[in-house]
């Protein structure tokens, strides 16, 4: 009896001393699409996140960050399920989530049910997330899909001389937002968008979609991502397609440009716009590319970070810097942290980023063209850099509100 109670005392003292010496942790939940069509995007997003931790470290004053990762599959319910699990089971205090457009809208709405926690968007880019009824505790340090298309419409119309284009896109909010940005600018310049085709996310066989592409257009805009984009290109090549192509931000991206096989070669010369350009000469960007390359062996990464890696890097960076500003103080429902996040201006690899009143990023956009580096690797080359792109794309907010929310048919092809 005595022996066992002695043992118990010894054990409990050991446990007590353990807690006394352990560092206080700040728990952060991260989600990424590590399943389904967007698996590759999620994986590279996590690489960007890891790169940020390598560069910035995990220490916040005398506390340490602990990250818990959950997987989603780009559907809104999977994102809410993952976030709920992170909050309820893993007791995270801060969320770095999610990756994809529809997920973003769902997580933003979910964020309202936990006003005490802080949500930092990882990479999702639907307009609605921060434009309609934004959540006060949801912060987005990447631009939305429409901002990422700024410059493309004008470049296509004025420099490339395209007058009529058709679009093919995945049927969900992020691509609606991308096409929204493109159509607004291209039609505003005087061009015509004759046909908009929408395919379900996760379409594998595009042969009939390809057959239905109109012949009488100057270029075809592709708003696809992940496996869908690779399948489209593969079948497009097999069908002998030869039209000029234009690409959305996750179409012309290392996730596609470094896919295995030759289908990606159909993209050489394609013009696109995105929140980054692989060959930008800015020292900050080059430093980030180096850090990314040094963080992983060559076979376990892309030649250059994808848009998702850049976004995860930027959002992780913003979170860590803001936490350091307040010295990890999460008291009073994390009020100080939220305040710091709203005000912080970060020197992200892809240009300076600050937030507007809706906690949506204002940043730099890039028009690019796909080039072959001579050794078979494809990169996006900078054509034009456009600083200070805001969510209303330079329109007067009242005019912008009249255009309506991005959808299959909005905006109309006209000058607003």
């Amino acid at each position, binding site marked *: 009896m005595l022996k066992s109670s002695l043992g118990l005392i010894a054990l409990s003292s050991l446990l007590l001393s353990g807690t006394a010496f352990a560092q206080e942790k700040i728990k952060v939940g991260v989600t990424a699409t590590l399943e389904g069509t967007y698996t590759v995007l999620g994986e590279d997003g996590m690489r960007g996140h890891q790169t940020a931790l390598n560069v910035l470290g995990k220490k916040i004053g005398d506390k340490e960050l602990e990250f818990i990762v959950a997987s989603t599959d780009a559907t809104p319910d999977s994102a809410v399920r993952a976030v709920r699990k992170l909050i309820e089971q893993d007791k995270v205090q801060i969320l770095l989530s999610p990756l994809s457009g529809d997920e973003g809208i769902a997580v933003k709405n979910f964020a309202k049910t936990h006003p005490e926690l802080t949500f930092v968007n990882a990479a999702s880019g639907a307009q609605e997330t921060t434009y309609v009824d934004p959540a006060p505790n949801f912060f987005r340090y990447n631009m939305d899909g429409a901002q990422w298309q700024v410059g493309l419409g004008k470049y296509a119309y004025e420099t490339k001389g395209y007058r009529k284009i058709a679009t093919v896109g995945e*049927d969900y909010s992020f691509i609606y937002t991308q096409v929204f940005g493109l159509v607004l600018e291209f039609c505003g310049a005087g061009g015509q968008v004759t046909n908009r085709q929408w395919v379900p996310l996760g379409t594998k*066989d595009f042969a*009939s979609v390809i057959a239905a592409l109109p012949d009488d257009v100057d270029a075809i805009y592709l708003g696809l991502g992940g496996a869908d984009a690779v399948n489209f290109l593969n079948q497009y090549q097999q069908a002998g397609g030869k039209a000029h192509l234009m690409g959305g931000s996750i179409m012309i991206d290392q996730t596609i440009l470094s896919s295995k096989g030759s289908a990606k070669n159909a993209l050489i010369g394609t013009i696109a716009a995105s929140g980054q350009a692989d060959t930008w000469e800015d020292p900050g960007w080059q430093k980030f590319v180096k850090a990314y390359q040094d963080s992983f062996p060559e076979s376990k990464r892309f030649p250059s970070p994808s848009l998702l890696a850049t976004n995860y890097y930027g959002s992780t960076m913003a979170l860590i810097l803001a936490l350091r500003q307040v010295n990890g103080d999460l008291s009073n429902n994390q009020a100080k942290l939220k305040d710091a996040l709203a005000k912080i201006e970060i020197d992200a690899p892809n240009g300076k980023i600050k937030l507007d009143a809706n906690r949506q990023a204002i940043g730099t956009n890039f028009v690019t063209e796909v080039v072959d580096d001579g050794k078979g690797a494809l990169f996006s080359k900078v054509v034009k850099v456009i600083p200070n792109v805001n969510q209303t794309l330079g329109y007067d907010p009242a005019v912008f509100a009249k255009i309506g929310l991005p959808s299959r048919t909005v905006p109309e092809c006209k000058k607003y």
Partner: protein
Amino acid sequence: MARFIERHPAWALIVIIAVAVLAWLVFAIWPPGLEAAIGRKRVFLNAVLNGITLGGLYFLVASGFTLIFGLMRNVNLAHGSLYLFGGYIGYAISTWTGSWILGFIIAFIAVALVGVILQLAVFRRMEGQDLRQTMVTIGLSIVFADLMLWVFGGDFYQVQTPSWLIGPVQLPLLTAIKSSGEPVYLQYPLVRLVIFLASVVIGIAMWLALNRTRIGMIVRAGVDDRDILAATGVRIQLVFVLVFALGAGLAGIAGVVGGTFQSLSPGEDTRFLLASLVVVIVGGMGSIPGAALGAVIIGLAEQLGSVYIPTYAIVVTFLIMVLVLALRPQGLLARR
């Protein structure tokens, strides 16, 4: 045929009219009114051909599934994993050796071996216990999926199409007549035609093997009553292993085909498992002609759906499944 017309004159008439309309849609030059109503003929013809060639791929996956089920009553829910595994093997071999054909052969052998191991180590131990088999194969499919994710990552792989198969061919099907009077013929990807022909050949070979050879006779006898067959001295376990190897190998071949004209990535396994389930439910569990019919119906529904009712394209296949389950639950071509 004549008996069918005698017994169901009304149905026969409907079928004949439908075939005539389809033939007219395929061969005639469409009048402008029709083009205005449902779009260009090129789009329609492409969708039909795509549906049939996609059906060829579905048939390859589903025929193995239905063969295994027909003989052994094993519901092998790891069938999708065999498909994906075959695709990865085909990719590895064809990039390593540069030979597309060799990719098929090795994929067939490798996946057939996995099938043999599955049969010996799993199914033989739980013969006749449907629920246990189902649960174990679901578990195995999850384990396989994670193992493949570990080895191959989340990247998209495409099996390199040999250069002589890239690009379109001209088919002798008129799509329109230019204003100059010059006829416009349909251009169609060669690789899809070749793959479709290959699946037809495999289908016919399988049918012949089942209906015209001694081993086929044993397999058919086993489907009807395996206890009596075993009692006559046939080594039924050996037959089971062979059939399982063949069914798995076919899934492996299908993986290479799928990797050639679509792509391979995590998640494809469950997609093709679902597709083959739908195909065999529509066609009839255990029937090879049923799998062929089901595959073509599902392929056509997917492709025509994606062109004419893109929003509801996903629903159409399941709607067909629901209709079949409601009206003819044993499947379209199942034997009673």
